[in-house]
């Protein structure tokens, strides 16, 4: 069957098997490998993309269901060479380690901030609670999203390194 959708601002039309999952369509057909796959059961959320601005788990959406819709993947987060504040926040506050869950986490964060520009930490935790990270323990992801909320226009590169915060207590 033929499907058409807008991905990261570009219109695409492809012939696909009706059973193809959106995550495989994005990764294998479009070669946008920033969207990952981590379970088969819609539990881990590493495959999250935005469909019409809302986070969806692309392992649980058929590519055919995205026909006529607008999809944003991690490759579409930055505006050219300018990173989204969420991307900057994840670098500033160490919101990632292995990087595998990161694209999905950042897209959920983007959707959250579009809906609620000043979320409380608990609201951030609820927003990402359908996604699993095995590396960070989540606190730094929460801080990363808070950073993005506090810097809606991002930050100039020269100011970014001076804002680092020491979170640990020393004897």
């Amino acid at each position, binding site marked *: 069957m033929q499907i058409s959708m807008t991905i990261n601002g570009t219109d695409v039309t492809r012939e696909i098997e009706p059973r193809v999952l959106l995550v495989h369509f994005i990764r294998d057909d479009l070669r946008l490998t920033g969207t*990952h796959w981590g379970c088969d059961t819609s539990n881990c959320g590493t495959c999250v993309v935005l469909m019409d601005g809302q986070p969806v788990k692309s392992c649980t959406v058929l590519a055919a269901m995205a026909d006529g819709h607008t999809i944003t993947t991690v490759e579409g987060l930055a505006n050219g060479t300018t990173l989204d504040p969420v991307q900057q926040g994840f670098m500033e506050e160490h919101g990632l*380690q*292995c*990087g595998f*869950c990161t*694209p999905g986490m950042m897209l959920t964060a983007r959707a959250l901030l579009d809906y609620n520009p000043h979320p409380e930490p608990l609201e951030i935790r609820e927003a990402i609670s359908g996604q699993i990270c095995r590396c960070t323990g989540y606190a730094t992801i929460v801080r990363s999203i808070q950073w993005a909320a506090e810097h809606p226009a991002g930050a100039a590169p020269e100011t970014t390194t001076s804002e680092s915060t020491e979170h640990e207590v020393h004897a």
Partner: protein
Amino acid sequence: MTILEDRPSNPAAGDHDRPIGHGRMQRKEDPRFVRGKGRYVDDIVLPGMLHGAILRAPVAHARLVSIDTTEALAHPKVLAVITGTDLQALGLAWAPTLSMDVQAVLVTDKVRFQGQEVAFVVAEDRYAARDALELIQVEYDVLPPVVDARKAMDPGAPVIRDDLEGRTDNHIFDWEAGDKAETDAVFASADVVVKQEIVYPRVHPAPMETCGAVADFDPIDGRLTLYETTQAPHAHRTLFAMVSGIPEHKIRVVSPDIGGGFGNKVGIYPGYILAVVGSIVTGKPVKWVEDRSENLMSTSFARDYIMQGEIAATKDGKILALRTNVLADHGAFNATAQPTKYPAGFFHIFTGSYDLAAAHCTVTGVYTNKAPGGVAYACSFRVTEAVYLVERMVDILARKLDMDPAELRLKNFIKKEQFPYANKTGWEYDSGDYEPTMRLSMKIAGYDELRREQKEKRERGELMGIGISFFTETVGAGPRKDMDILGLGMADGAELRIHPTGKAVVRISVQSQGQGHETTFAQIVAEEIGIPPEDIDVVHGDTDQTPFGLGTYGSRSTPVSGAAVALVARKVREKARFIAAAMLETRPEDLEWAKGRWFVKGDPRVGKTMAEIAMGAHGTVALPEGIDGNLDAEVTYDPPNLTFPFGAYICVVDIDPGTGHVTVRRFIAVDDCGTRINPMIIEGQIHGGLTDGVGMALMEIIEFDDEGNCLGGSFMDYLIPTAMEVPDWETGFTVTPSPHHPIGAKGVGESATVGSPPAVVNAVVDALAPFGVVHMDMPCTPARVWEAMQGRTRPPV
């Protein structure tokens, strides 16, 4: 979250509490990850690449009667179907494990665990490969399985490994450490002896990225390129050479970005070998990536220790001795990854942080009809099990003596002046100063106030618990004379080159799975030679590009490879001194080093920076005798001892008396990993490990039913903490450098995974003290907690 804007200087700690190489800096690997430009194994697409899928056994124990692949082979998109019989013809049906056993690559005779590999399909795309699995007809003759390790040695138990000649039972090994007679004597005369059976259940590392490989065999020059999810690319290359017969110089293992490892990506799994066989058979590259159920059901699990613990003490709380007998469930093949001499890993550090008169442990390993593995999930070679045992036993003793658990620990710590400390089972702890670390954790927690709050709540019938764990780790294996994996000594290499313009590349043998090696290793070099970390490229994860070494697991990257990197940088720095002297027309001994340059003693204006020296090395300056025209060096570091990081953890839980649901309200972690490199990365590593600990303590378990069906085979059943199950971590640190490590650093990657489970369980048991509960096995699920409140001790999960 505890914030301290300006970290006060610590005069007692001297200069060594300063982090290394610019301290907190953003990670060099992050720009690609936040743009979705990481390159993981499943992202690799080669021209003409095919896709493999594995047919797995639906039962735990069965004779293989027949396999019919006719229909699958007739599938228009299928290029090959490989069975155990095919592998037998190639001599590849069995592969050596990392514990001197063998494991079936594909079943030839008998299925030995549910999910075992039975056949391999190679097809044009991943959907077709999966379709074809459905077309393979297999007939099994089902046998009774051994599921409970306690019954594995029963007379008449089914013999799982009848493939091994002369095998008549399921026994693998007996191992012991410590002095039994001395320990028994101390126990016989002790005032107080407490016993407890403690089960550390089977769990799974479950990294977000499952295991996979892309094999590309070139039949013309006989060269294999293998892209693989591996934490140990060099060790894998050597083992692939041994198994496949492809000469080692014709094998290149590339481990690109790895989506989490935690020990899951140390072993060599049948899928990797099958991808190679598939590529050889079809003449095309073959990708194999397992799904989540395959990952949870067939790759390396962790723990599965049944421990009989006993602790002896005086009545005023001086701990005298510990002993334990352990039954270790190793699954169907003994495939644990650990140094050869240590079949139970480093479990014999179960004496913990305490100064004991005696200690003894025995460990018996048995086969069961379950997936193989056993050392994984950030366990530091079984230090997790050891720390859990001792920290639970100390808490149980505190209850028996009616002593505060913090006070009991403080009373029994190894004292600062006793280091280096020889424990009773053969370890030499390199350095430690436990009391300040414990006191800092209590200060951050507000320990006395918490106990007051708990007392008030208990009077109101509310269930609040405070749990303490004080752990000592042993990480950074070798030395190579004592520690090897299949004969490969546990050492690591590093190569450093300074280019003519003063930029550098350092090549290392260890492999990041998210630890940030590209940043921290650049920081170590920066500290030593004065080039900014931004100007130092770290190359890893490619056996053609890097020196040999044993890889990243057991928190060994910084203790071993970090030392190699520091030493290779010092070697370059010393060479630079000779070149600078030639450039300045002076003697090397007249030069002094500071801030990235060699200058004439007493005249700092006359000197050369590393960049100037690098250009000189490659330029036209007449070099002294014996100095090559470059600024390069290489070393292989053989650690003289392991490093012994430690920490004090305090967990505060609230339990809903109506449902048994445990909420981790606070978690305070004070870690001492010696000299720190990048505090941001250290904190991140600790946060991740604490989350593992909460998961294992409250949620995670791989269980089996009586038929050997795996009950934890998906994320619907194997529960992992989300952001809602963990608190905002409160961290602190002390700095006690390692005396033998070049920069004083110790490992930290697994500290929190090792140290946190007992803190959570101790807190749960503390909360349930009013019900007379003295112990509960993990995971402390609502069902188990509620049942324990009713006085039933071994309820189901």
